[in-house]
Each structure stands twice: as C-alpha cells, then as structure tokens.
C-alpha cells in the first residue's frame, strides 16, 4: 500500500478522502453495516490494493471485488477443452500469457506445454494469424478470451482471416460480457450491494447505456471510472453523493476516454462476428444467461468449436471446484479472501487452487500480494 503523499496529487487525494468521510454517513454507511461498493473490473481491484484504498477509506465503506477478471472466471472445463485441442496433431495453440497458469480439472496450459503440446504465448490475435500465414501446413488456434475490451480484436482478426482465406486459422471463443453477471449478482437474494464502480476500458467500447438497467430496474448507482487511484476516489465520491441524495443513475467519471455511446466501429465488429450463447458458465458464479458469445455461422470455418468438434457444454460435466474452495463466495462479496480455508496455505499465486488466485487482477491474488497473509490479517 502507498501513503497519500505518494499519490500523483496528494492535496487532491486528501480532499477526496475528506469528502468520502463526510458523505459516507449521509449515504447510509455505518460501522456495523458498512456500505458495499463493488468495483467490477479486475484492474480496479488491483489498483485498490496497490494503493491500499480499502484501508484508507472509512470503516463505514467496504469494497466488494467483482467478477471482472476474465481468467479468474474461466470454467475449468474450458481449460480442459483448450488442452484437448492443443494436444491434436498439427495444432499450434496460441494464448495470452495470462491464461497459461489457470488450472483445468487435471492441468494448466503451462503443464500441457511442458508435456510437449505446441502452445505459444502471443501478445495479440494478429500474431496468431501471422503465425498461421508463416506455417501453412499447421493448424493455428487462438484462444479468444476476455471481455468487451478484447472481443473487437478477435472479431477483426477473424474478419481479416476470412478476407485472406486463411483457413488454417481458427479461434476458440470464450469471450464473455460484463453486464449479464451484474444482473445475476443483483438478482441474488444474498446480495446487498449499494453501488458500483464501472469498468473504464470496457465502457470505452460499450459506452454507458448497457448499465442503465442497474439504475432503472435495481435502483443502484454506477459510476464508470478510470483506473488511476484519483479516478477511483472521485468515482466513489460520485457514488456516495448519489446515495446521499437518494438518486440512482449511471454516471461517467472517465468521460475523457469513455464516450457515452462507446466505440461504434468496435461494436460493429463484435456484432458482425459474434452472437450470444443462451448461457455460459462462470467459475464461482455458475451458468449465467446470455453472458458469453460464440462465433456466428457465417464464420464457422474460423470457429475452433466447429473445426475440432469441441462445442460448449458438449455433454461434459461442469468442472467441479476444488473441495473447500470459496471463490464463488468471494466473487459475490459474501466473504473476504482470508476467510477461505485454502487462502495462503494450499492456495497461493505460485500454485493457484482457486481461480481468484491466478491473476494479479483476481481478488485473492491482490489480497495476498498487498493485503497481508492470513496470519497477519487475523492479528
């Protein structure tokens, strides 16, 4: 954690903390029943821990760390499918580095690579397409992963492959959407969230309109924020102001980057290439309606599910979570990471057992790195 003096503008930071302190009471927060504000994006979770914002805000306010880390919510059965595809003759399987250590039911992509599968880490789907061009006798598969921030990238790459007739290239699509799990969380009777900090870069693509149901149907405020600590503090002030005034609106703290209507070119590419699945499985949260997308039939030649016969759900049992793992309760904000019996013992960033320990954007890994171990936590 950092001291306020180390913030980019310490005077502004102090002022924002003072405003949070004065607003938290009128907004309805008490020490016994703190206000719960969910930051959706894993980048925000990382920034909150890096700067210790969770410890610097008053006790009447607590952060709940949302489901916005795509590798953290990837179902184990899909990792198994990746390994199955990667093990086929002639396949080069390409993935973002973040996904290498995600545990499947038996092993991770990292372990599969060590056992001889041709698995390559790429920075961009463009590099996977280039690899296909350079290896015309191999089948190159790109692991399409991420929220609306990476969806346009794989969509445009698929369209380029189609334009080129690059038929030795396909995408194993596991893209997921930000708004549907928020609806699922808000519909869960165990939840008692008071407001949201919305993701910055996802909103740069989709705009602010897709969040409207949060205010209109569930009566909760959401403020889209940048991921600098001052942006986050400003957004919290805006959420608290809404609560104190009894308003529930979608506001945009990050208007310097996020246009209200998002990026129309990116949305057009997403719309052209993908269609919603009827439901998709989220680790820790279960099946959520229309929360994932698949590649449209028009681009079936570039769809690894079709090419390799690895359909979603294809009669497989959903991967069971490791015994005692409480990732789901952490994602819902019901418990803090140290309350999980596996945290810091059997489950650490070097050997993640649960999904939230995998990426630095996962709540457990962030808690482990910056929040102290369980023993310190208990002390």
């Amino acid at each position, binding site marked *: 954690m950092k001291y306020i003096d180390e913030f980019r503008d310490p005077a502004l930071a102090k002022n924002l903390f003072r405003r949070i302190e004065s607003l938290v009471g009128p907004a309805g927060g008490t020490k016994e029943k703190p206000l719960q504000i969910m930051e959706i994006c894993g980048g925000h979770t990382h920034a909150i821990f890096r700067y210790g914002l969770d410890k610097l805000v008053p006790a009447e306010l607590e952060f709940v760390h949302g489901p916005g880390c795509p590798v953290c919510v990837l179902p184990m059965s899909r990792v198994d499918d990746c390994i199955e595809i990667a093990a086929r003759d002639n396949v080069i399987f390409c993935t973002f580095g973040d996904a290498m250590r995600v545990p499947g039911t038996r092993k991770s992509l990292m372990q599969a690579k060590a056992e001889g599968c041709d698995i390559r880490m790429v*920075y*961009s789907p*463009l590099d996977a397409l280039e690899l296909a061009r350079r290896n015309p006798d191999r089948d190159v598969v790109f692991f399409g992963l991420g929220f609306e921030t990476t969806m346009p*990238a794989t969509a*445009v790459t698929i369209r380029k492959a189609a334009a080129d007739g690059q038929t030795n290239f396909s995408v194993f699509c596991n893209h997921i959407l930000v708004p549907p799990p928020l609806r699922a969380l808000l519909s869960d009777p165990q939840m008692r969230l008071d407001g949201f900090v919305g993701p910055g*870069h996802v909103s740069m693509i989709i705009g602010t309109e897709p969040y409207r149901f949060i205010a209109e149907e569930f009566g909760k405020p959401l403020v889209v924020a940048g991921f600098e600590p001052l942006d986050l503090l400003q957004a919290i002030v805006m959420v608290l102001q809404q609560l104190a005034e009894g308003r529930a609106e979608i506001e945009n703290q990050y208007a*310097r980057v996020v246009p209200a209507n998002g990026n129309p070119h990116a949305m057009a590419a997403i719309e052209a290439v993908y269609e919603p699945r009827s439901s998709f499985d989220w680790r820790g949260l279960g099946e959520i309606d229309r929360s994932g997308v698949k590649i449209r039939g028009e681009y079936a030649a570039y769809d690894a599910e079709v090419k390799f016969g690895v359909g979603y759900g294809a009669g497989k049992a959903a991967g069971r979570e490791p015994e005692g793992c409480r990732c789901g309760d952490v994602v819902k904000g019901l418990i803090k990471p140290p309350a999980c019996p596996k945290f810091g013992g059997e489950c650490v960033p070097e050997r993640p057992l649960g999904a939230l320990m995998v990426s*630095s954007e996962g709540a457990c890994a962030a808690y482990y790195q910056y929040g102290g171990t369980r023993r310190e936590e208990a002390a």
Partner: protein
Amino acid sequence: MCLGIPGRIAAIRDAERRIASVDFSGVRRDVDLTCVAEGALDDLVGTWVLVHVGFAMSVIDEAEAQRTLEALAELGEAEEEYAAMRESAAMLEERP
C-alpha cells in the same frame, strides 16, 4: 489484456490492412487501426492511441497518455505488456 496501453503512431505500415507501426516507450509493434479510423490514416501519424492486444481502441491526447502510462507503471502492468510484445515478436521469428 484488460487494460489498454498508450502508444504513439510512428508510421502507417499497410493502409489497406489498416496497420500502423506504434511506439510503446521504445518497443515498436504493429497495431490495427480498424476501430479508430475510417478512410485515410495518414493524419493519425504522431497521435496517441490506447491499444488493447494490438488493436487501437481510442485516440487520446498526450496528457492522458502520460497519466495512463504512469498508472500502468505503478501497477507493474506496463512492463508486463512490453515484455509480452517482445516475446510475441521473438516467437514469430523462431524457426518451427
């Protein structure tokens, strides 16, 4: 992967394929401009863009770019992105 990283467009490399060469604090790589421009691309040379996995998603001003770079550096994400770019380029050059 989830956070975009700012880079400055150094040159248009292939107008037809909408590809520019972008400078990321000294690391150069190809970036697709499909999502930030229609028509001619030459006017974009010298501007800053926020890039997600090799695709420009927003044109930003220099002050915003610097502010974002500082925030990413603090989170350790900037170095991770540059390393991923370098490793990906090296992987492509490997003989199969």
